[in-house]
């Protein structure tokens, strides 16, 4: 019963967060004097095609179609209703396609990159951090973590620029950007898969190297506190093997707070990935967002922002539900 109440409370919190995010993305653009439709058609009018007198008519017509001539509260209600359906409207620049179309075309690229790099950096960082704080680990294993700690201050984007310079430009080992080589038509051959994989290595490395240090640092801190605990000493005196103590007594307890940290870091991880995608010109959500910013495609900007916010908030709440599975003490209560 208590768990049920907790689940309901967290779900209500999630709905509240999504409501807050959509309210922000609804009202902030309307506070501004910029009109996306007017700018778009003024741009079209400059390139020629129709008389300026018709421009106002077209704008009024479009505003009617987008529902911008209705009272604000009615627009707000409809907007919230659309958000519930994940309907973010039409793109201004690629008009017949909806924002959701653009997102779903780019999403597989982004999910692949973010999923792989996040999991890898979490695992590598926590293992290295745990080993660095474990006094019985061999010396060389403990020093492996040091260079990663030094990289903590370098965000993934800058790491990307450095990698592009050293590995892509100086050593010419890996491509400088794009999803696949220019001139190749996407197909289902091994060569194409290899080519695509080569293009993914640098962005993935940038994201992993840019975030591993943080995990190393926090895990090392956790590790130092936990190895002083009585139960670790007790396990040692019982004569348990080093690996068993490391895995079951030390790592498992130190990992719990890290999962909370993981949930909190999700937002930063996703935003870093978006900017990195833009730097490398991968066809993911980040590049779509950057193109939308350049071309003032407002519905796409707001749609992507809202979509990511909803995803991140949902994942954070979902991770909270995973927590009891990892910690038997919470499950008991």
């Amino acid at each position: 019963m208590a768990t049920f109440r907790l689940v309901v409370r967290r779900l209500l919190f999630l709905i509240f967060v999504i409501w807050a995010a959509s309210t922000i993305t609804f009202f902030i653009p309307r506070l501004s004097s910029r009109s996306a439709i007017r700018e778009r058609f003024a741009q079209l009018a400059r390139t020629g095609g129709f008389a300026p007198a018709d421009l106002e008519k077209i704008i009024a017509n479009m505003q009617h179609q987008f529902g911008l001539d209705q009272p604000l509260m009615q627009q707000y209600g409809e907007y919230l209703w659309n958000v519930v359906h994940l309907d973010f409207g039409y793109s201004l620049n690629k008009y017949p396609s909806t924002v959701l179309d653009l997102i779903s075309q780019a999403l597989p690229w982004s999910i692949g990159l973010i999923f792989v790099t996040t999991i890898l950096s979490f695992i590598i960082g926590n293992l290295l951090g745990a080993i660095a704080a474990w006094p019985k680990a061999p010396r060389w294993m403990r020093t492996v973590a040091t260079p990663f700690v030094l990289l903590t201050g370098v965000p993934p984007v800058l790491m990307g620029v450095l990698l592009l310079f050293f590995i892509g430009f100086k050593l010419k080992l890996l491509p400088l950007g794009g999803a696949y080589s220019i001139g190749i038509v996407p197909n289902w051959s091994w060569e194409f898969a290899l080519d695509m994989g080569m293009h993914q290595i640098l962005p993935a490395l940038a994201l992993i190297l840019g975030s591993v240090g943080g995990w190393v640092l926090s895990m090392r801190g956790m590790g130092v506190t936990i190895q002083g605990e009585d139960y670790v000493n007790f396990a040692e005196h019982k004569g348990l093997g080093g690996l068993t103590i490391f895995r079951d007594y030390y790592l498992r307890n130190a990992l719990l707070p890290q999962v909370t940290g993981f949930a909190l870091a999700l937002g930063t991880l996703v935003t870093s990935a978006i900017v990195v995608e833009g730097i490398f010109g991968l066809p993911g959500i980040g590049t779509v967002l950057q193109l939308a910013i350049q071309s003032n495609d407002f519905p796409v900007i707001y749609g992507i922002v809202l979509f990511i916010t909803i995803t991140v908030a949902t994942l954070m709440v979902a991770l909270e539900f995973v927590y009891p599975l990892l910690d038997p003490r919470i499950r008991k209560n």
Partner: protein
Amino acid sequence: MATIALASGVEERVQQPSQVTLFFRYLRRNKSLAIGLAVLLALVLFTVIGLLVVSPKAAYPLAAMTKQPPSWKYPFGTDFFGRNLLAAMAVGLWQTAVIGVLAGALGTLIGIILGFISAYFGGWLDNLIRGICQVLTPIPVLLIQVVVASTLDKRDVTIFTMALIVVMLAWMWPTLVIRSQVLTMKERQFVSVAKLSGVSDFGIIFKEILPNLLPFIAAAFVGQVFSAVFASFYLAVLGLGPLREPLLGNIIWSAQGQGAFFNGWWWWPIEPAIAMILILGSLALIIMGLDELANPRVRRSE
């Protein structure tokens, strides 16, 4: 300085090393603070000397020959638009510092005010402020900043609006830090003594609690500067910065937009990237050092 030292007498100086010496002695123990401050000082020196040597006008387009690699005439090279990158680095560092310090100070101030109100007066105000912080935490702040920055008219985007955009959604962390510190401070005995002897609420806040929080406030301030620099950099890399200004993120954005690496203009994106790494790295080291200063527990565990 000299007059104070003379006034306090020579004998005293023999027993008690001066504040400056003590500071340097502390720096020798607190390595991360020392290195961080040294790098930051070097960056400041570079900016000041750079601004004195080259005219800031050279940081703007059409000031120099385009696409020149580093040479004696242009030690940092020039970019596609004819910016002299040495000047651009100096001006860009200066603008980054303005954004960082302005947004950092504002964010810390808001954090102190809200944190104190929340912790000291408690009740529904506390619930409200904490609730807002909790709801905003799962929302990726950078994305909301993208929304705000993109609705602004391009002409309205300046260094100052960048700082305001950054600070608008970045006060939650200092608020929570200050709040938790005030909560523990409130229960200390010296506060109870002050309360019993009839000191007013504001007297307690300003005379008793605030001075004791200074290390935490300093750490929160540097943390705010770090996140402000970071956020404004990300916005600029996405192309939302003031496009004419040689802000470090803008330079990387335009370099990538022109395919700098594909065309062999390697110096163009790499210079702002290294400058940014030095800024963020030195700030991160200073935060770690201040943490050690404010939090003796960390000191002991080392």
